[in-house]
């Protein structure tokens, strides 16, 4: 029977040069008595994904079910991971291998993966992770000899030459390319493409950073249209047709997509096209430095498109758009919170019953007796609100208390003086029905108390993760700061002191929760995300666009905005905007709303029809 194109593609993609020993070691997870889990680690471009592809093909050929996920395409929360994997592991009949690529993007759920997910998998399941850093002590302690660690170094010279030969280079070309790429797989790939395109380019073109230079060498050889598409998409986490259409409006998104997909450092994933991080960062840095105006224009166009996609998305698609927006956020505090860039020394996880003594001991080191008693009272009432940071030995070195307001018994809220300003503020500024309020009651470290420290930083990143995990309903987070310096640290992400309070602070995420908050943070140009209704000028400024309105449209919108998030009765609109009571058959309200929606364009959905009542405005 003739082979299909798909089979050929799979075979080519699985072809691997020079990783025989590593592949054989990984396949050991399928052997009786072999390791239960394996971690492949190596720097960017070292060939981890290629090795995993070969593993998947070989494991499947041996009759195992392979469940593959990519950390870049998964919301870094427990529900997000479970949604991506589904029941494919649990429902597999025979041996099953869960393969997780780009696991460094899942550092926020590292503790959960290790302590909750893996132990809950069926006995026949094995797990293989690929990540940039070597697994920490927590993993090695948990699995001991049952964890296989496979470091990916450079390719051996003979293997590197084989890669270059397959890429079409002759022996002389292979020799000089391999001399400066030193076996780094991505560099080899880029160099091979560059040499094919410009066979006479000399070694003297090489700059100190080999990959960046190779990327530049390659990029110089690109045609202007492809180069512009690559520049434009360097501001994006992933490339989709809709995002391409927004950042490169002058040409067909499909054509631009196909051109980008053909590049040797682009890979088609579940969420779209992914440009290799190393190349993307090099292109982005070059663009930012040499053409800041174009860089800004691409960011603005991307922001508007993602903003529009966020407004209409739910579930996994919503996370994908939130992550797209996060990629535009340049505030390091936020970026680091969601995608920690360095290895974490402290494992953060939900507190266990046995941690009570350690938590109270930390409180006793830094707090007066009354406060220690309160920590005890919170532990009794909401033990699930406690999360701890453990040092590599497993000792509790810090803890936080974070929970939803509704989970805290009223008696405790009344008893705890810290909560009084929060409650007063909430009474004066209630949240809408269904919106959640989180209380970040405490964060203390054994050595340094409430002062900034690496273990508390790990816990605070976890707090942001928990806010994200709480879903699209989180409206507000109340917390505490020790002093002005601490407030200054968290002010860039939107925390502000409660009026008249020194220690109580508030982060209001807005009616669109995390999505809206991240959008505001990503808009570095205030005009970009400003929404302003100018009643006198009869003009709405939305995402930087100026939209002319009629007087009636302007008044209707102003009325709805004053009641944002709440249903407004049609009769109330007639009474307050038109100035007369219900008259029966008039359709003037419908006409005005229809005109408004038309002018709002892709944001028309912000005005919702509430059946049997009237209309409700969601955040513009």
């Amino acid at each position, binding site marked *: 029977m003739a082979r299909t194109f798909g089979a050929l593609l799979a075979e080519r993609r699985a072809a691997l040069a020079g990783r025989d020993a590593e592949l054989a070691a990984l396949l050991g997870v399928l052997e009786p008595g072999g390791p239960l889990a394996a971690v492949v680690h190596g720097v960017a471009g070292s060939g981890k994904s290629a090795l995993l592809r070969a593993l998947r093909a070989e494991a499947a050929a041996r009759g195992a079910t392979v469940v593959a996920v990519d950390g870049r395409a998964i919301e870094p929360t427990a529900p997000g991971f479970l949604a991506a994997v589904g029941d494919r592991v649990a429902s597999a009949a025979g041996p099953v291998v869960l393969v997780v690529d780009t696991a460094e993007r899942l550092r926020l759920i590292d503790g959960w993966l290790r302590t909750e997910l893996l132990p809950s998998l069926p006995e026949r399941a094995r797990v293989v992770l690929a990540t940039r850093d070597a697994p920490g002590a927590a993993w090695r302690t948990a699995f001991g000899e049952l964890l296989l660690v496979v470091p990916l170094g450079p390719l051996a010279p003979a293997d590197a030459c084989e890669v270059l030969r397959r890429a079409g280079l002759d022996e002389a070309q292979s020799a000089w390319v391999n001399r400066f790429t030193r076996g780094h797989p991505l560099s080899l790939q880029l160099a091979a493409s560059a040499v094919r395109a410009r066979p006479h380019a000399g070694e003297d073109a090489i700059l100190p950073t080999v990959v960046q230079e190779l990327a530049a060498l390659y990029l110089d050889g690109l045609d202007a249209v492809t180069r512009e598409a690559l520049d434009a998409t360097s501001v994006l986490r992933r490339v989709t047709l809709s995002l391409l259409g927004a950042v490169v409006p002058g040409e067909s998104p499909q054509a631009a997509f196909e051109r980008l997909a053909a590049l040797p450092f682009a890979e088609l994933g579940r969420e779209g096209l992914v440009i290799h991080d190393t190349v993307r960062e090099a292109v982005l840095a070059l663009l930012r430095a040499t053409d800041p105006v174009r860089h800004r224009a691409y960011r603005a166009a991307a922001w508007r498109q993602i903003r529009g996609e966020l407004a209409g998305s739910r579930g996994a698609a919503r996370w994908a758009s939130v992550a797209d927006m996060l990629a535009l956020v340049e505030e390091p505090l936020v970026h680091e919170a969601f995608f920690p860039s360095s290895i974490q020394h402290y494992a953060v996880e939900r507190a266990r019953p046995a941690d009570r003594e350690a938590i109270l001991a930390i409180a006793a080191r830094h707090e007066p007796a009354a406060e220690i008693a309160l920590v005890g009272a919170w532990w009794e009432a909401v033990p699930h609100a406690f999360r701890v940071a453990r040092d590599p030995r497993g*000792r509790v070195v810090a803890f936080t208390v974070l929970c939803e307001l509704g989970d805290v018994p009223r008696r405790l809220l009344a008893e705890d003086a810290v909560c009084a300003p929060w409650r007063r503020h909430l009474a004066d500024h209630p949240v809408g029905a269904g919106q959640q309020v989180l209380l970040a009651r405490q964060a203390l470290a054994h*050595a340094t108390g409430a*002062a900034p*420290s690496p273990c508390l930083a790990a816990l605070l990143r976890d707090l942001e993760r928990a806010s994200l995990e709480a879903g699209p309903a989180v409206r507000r987070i109340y917390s505490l700061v020790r002093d002005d310096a601490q407030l200054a640290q968290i002010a860039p992400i939107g925390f502000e002191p409660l009026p008249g309070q020194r220690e109580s602070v508030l982060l209001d995420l807005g009616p669109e929760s995390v999505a809206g908050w991240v959008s505001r943070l990503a808009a570095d140009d205030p005009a970009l995300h400003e929404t302003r209704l100018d009643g006198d000028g009869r003009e709405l400024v939305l995402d930087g666009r100026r939209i002319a309105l009629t007087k009636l449209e302007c008044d209707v919108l102003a009325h709805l905005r004053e009641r944002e998030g709440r249903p407004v009765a049609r009769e109330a609109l007639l009474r307050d905007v038109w100035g007369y009571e219900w008259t029966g058959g008039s359709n003037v309200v419908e006409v005005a709303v229809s005109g408004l929606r038309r002018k709002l364009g892709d944001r028309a959905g912000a005005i919702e029809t509430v059946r049997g009542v009237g209309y409700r405005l969601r955040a513009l």
Partner: protein
Amino acid sequence: MPLYLVPRTRAWLSEEELAAATDCLPAVNDAMRGDVRWIRSYVVAEEDGTFSGYCVYEASGPEALRRHGEATMLPTDAIKPVVATIVAAPDPEPAAAT
């Protein structure tokens, strides 16, 4: 503040613990400012794979150093006041952990 030498046998069980301690050093110094200043530690590998340290501090007194040991969860074998320093040559570049 006077100078002290504090031997800490098998203070760190792994390289990760050592790295975590190094990470925390500025925060700990900041929290104990005025009482203890961690100057440097000479770390040696033990045969069982653990690491011991010979740590040099400025401190207001032994009691502050005991509190520092509790805060950092490190064993304190002894607290010895330094009575003289003989410098034959400045410290070379810090040695790697392994």
